[in-house]
């Protein structure tokens, strides 16, 4: 039925017209494919347009309102004051912290993802290939909260990691790391290092899949040719594999970057009391009741991701998705 639109002009019907409302409708759709197309598109477009885009625009609009500091009421007049508030040192600090974290998480995910993706693309065959695929898919789809909870268990002071390091007589290493400023803290589960580890863990599958897709397209003889011509494995990686895998890495980094920018649950459960953008949005709209500032805060990841996607598109990352 959906094919009808590709038919330019239907030939006159040889069959007798089908009877009833159903037949009439069927004939109508055959003669007027545009009508059918319209009817098919109407429900999803209305739903997404009204529910999603509608509320998104309403939110953006509210970022141009401001809050009256004395009464706490929202002043519905166009102003850029809220965006001015966004540039206060404390808020800039939050933005900078979140972006740095997103960049570090992206870098670490790329480093851990590459060997898995490369092995799966080049060496795994048949049953192993399926196993590798499921091995990445299952953690990707496992419950987000359960994954965070698992790390709360691991990183707790009395947890398995401390126990393991004690068995290996490496506890001094952990204590040394935790005594450092910024990355350290009382225990791993209340330090920035903990937040970083959990972010990397939770978003890693989003990096592996596109990198693997990009590497699948690299012909194996390219790597062989490179080594035949005398390149060391390191040189082959730098000059052949890495440039070809780059669109996949950029595609994966869209996810790791965007997801880190918008997350507010991971830093709330594992990490310090220093806020990230997501937490700032949450507390501004919740306890503070300052919807305009919360809305202005959400514009930050939208703008950053806008530039990011634009750059990624120029690097051809979308073909690797």
């Amino acid at each position, binding site marked *: 039925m*959906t094919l009808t639109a590709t038919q330019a002009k239907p030939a006159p019907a040889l069959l007798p017209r089908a009877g009833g409302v159903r037949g009439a409708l069927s004939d109508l759709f055959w003669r007027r494919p545009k009508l059918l197309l319209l009817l098919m598109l109407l429900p*999803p477009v209305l739903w*997404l*347009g009204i*529910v999603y885009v509608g509320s998104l625009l309403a939110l953006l609009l509210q970022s141009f309102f401001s809050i009256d500091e004395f009464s706490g009421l929202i002043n519905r007049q166009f102003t850029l004051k809220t965006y001015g508030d966004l540039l206060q040192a404390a808020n800039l600090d939050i933005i900078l912290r979140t972006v740095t974290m997103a960049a570090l998480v992206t870098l670490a995910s790329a480093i851990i993802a590459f060997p898995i993706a490369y092995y799966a693309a080049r060496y795994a065959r048949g049953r192993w290939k399926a196993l590798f695929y499921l091995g990445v898919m*299952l953690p990707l789809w496992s*419950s987000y909260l359960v994954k965070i909870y698992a790390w*709360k268990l691991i990183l707790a002071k009395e947890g398995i990691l401390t126990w393991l390091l004690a068995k290996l007589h490496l506890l001094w290493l952990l204590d040394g790391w935790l005594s450092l400023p910024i990355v350290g803290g009382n225990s791993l589960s209340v330090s920035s290092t903990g937040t970083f580890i959990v972010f990397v863990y939770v978003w890693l599958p989003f990096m592996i899949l596109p990198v693997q897709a990009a590497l699948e397209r690299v012909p194996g003889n390219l790597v062989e040719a490179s080594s035949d011509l005398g390149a060391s494995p390191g040189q082959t990686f730098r000059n052949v594999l890495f440039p070809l895998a780059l669109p996949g890495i950029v595609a994966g980094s869209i996810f790791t970057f965007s997801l880190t920018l918008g997350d507010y649950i991971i830093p709330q459960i594992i990490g310090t009391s220093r806020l990230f953008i997501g937490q700032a949005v949450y507390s501004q*709209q919740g306890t503070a009741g300052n919807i305009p500032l919360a809305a202005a805060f959400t514009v930050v990841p939208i703008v950053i991701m806008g530039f990011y996607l634009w750059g990624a598109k120029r690097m051809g990352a979308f073909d690797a998705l």
Partner: protein
Amino acid sequence: MRSDGSSSAPLGLKVAATGGLLFLHLPIFLIFIYAFTTEEKSFAWPPPGLTTQWFAVTWNRPDVWEALSLSVRVAAISTLVALVLGTLCAAAVSRTRFFGRETISLLVILPIALPGIITGIALRSAFSLAEIPFSFWTIVLGHATFCVVVVYNNAVARFRRTSGSMIEASMDLGADGFQTFRHVVLPNIATALLAGGMLAFALSFDEVIVTTFTAGQQQTLPIWMLEELIRPRQRPVTNVVAMVVVLVTLLPILVAYYLTRDGDQIAGSGK
């Protein structure tokens, strides 16, 4: 590489790949052990003893059952809505060229391309502007919106592989549009829809970020877990619930994978 059979991975690569996969799986595995621990007050490792009593305790907790039932109902209704909207959209986009086609693909993908917190706060502020009170349906509204994309992705991939000449043949043989849909189109896309529906269910069942904004005082299972994570009340019960959640989400993913593994695009490769 496929030409020479002698290729075997260098040791370093093997170690790094195995290490990476272990890093992905061991934490989830740990949940299963903690569900049996006798320790109540802390996350102590190794567990001082093993017991199955927490399964019985969890079974008798009405708040867990209520949260589970709400989650299942929300996920079922959202999946249904997403199935209808996603299939309609995929059918329209994959078979015809029309003005604004790219925009529609973007529109479908946007709800999961943008961080969940943006979707969440946008919906919440829209509800408060329109003075809609929080209810079962406000949760469904949010969930269905981002579930459309998984159904859409699966259906588009299948439509692309289904040959259009079959539909022509059916019409030529005298079937009307509805008969063609029922006997030709539907059997062809059925497994893709089932896979998409499974993934949509898993996505909705697990969703927490958007839900915190659209649920009000209601508790879905992920919200219940989030509360426990922030203010732990009974850790062993949380352990058991976490294990059950892993198992419940595992099944739909495996089924979706087996339904679509022969295709060019395997379900779930993008969340």
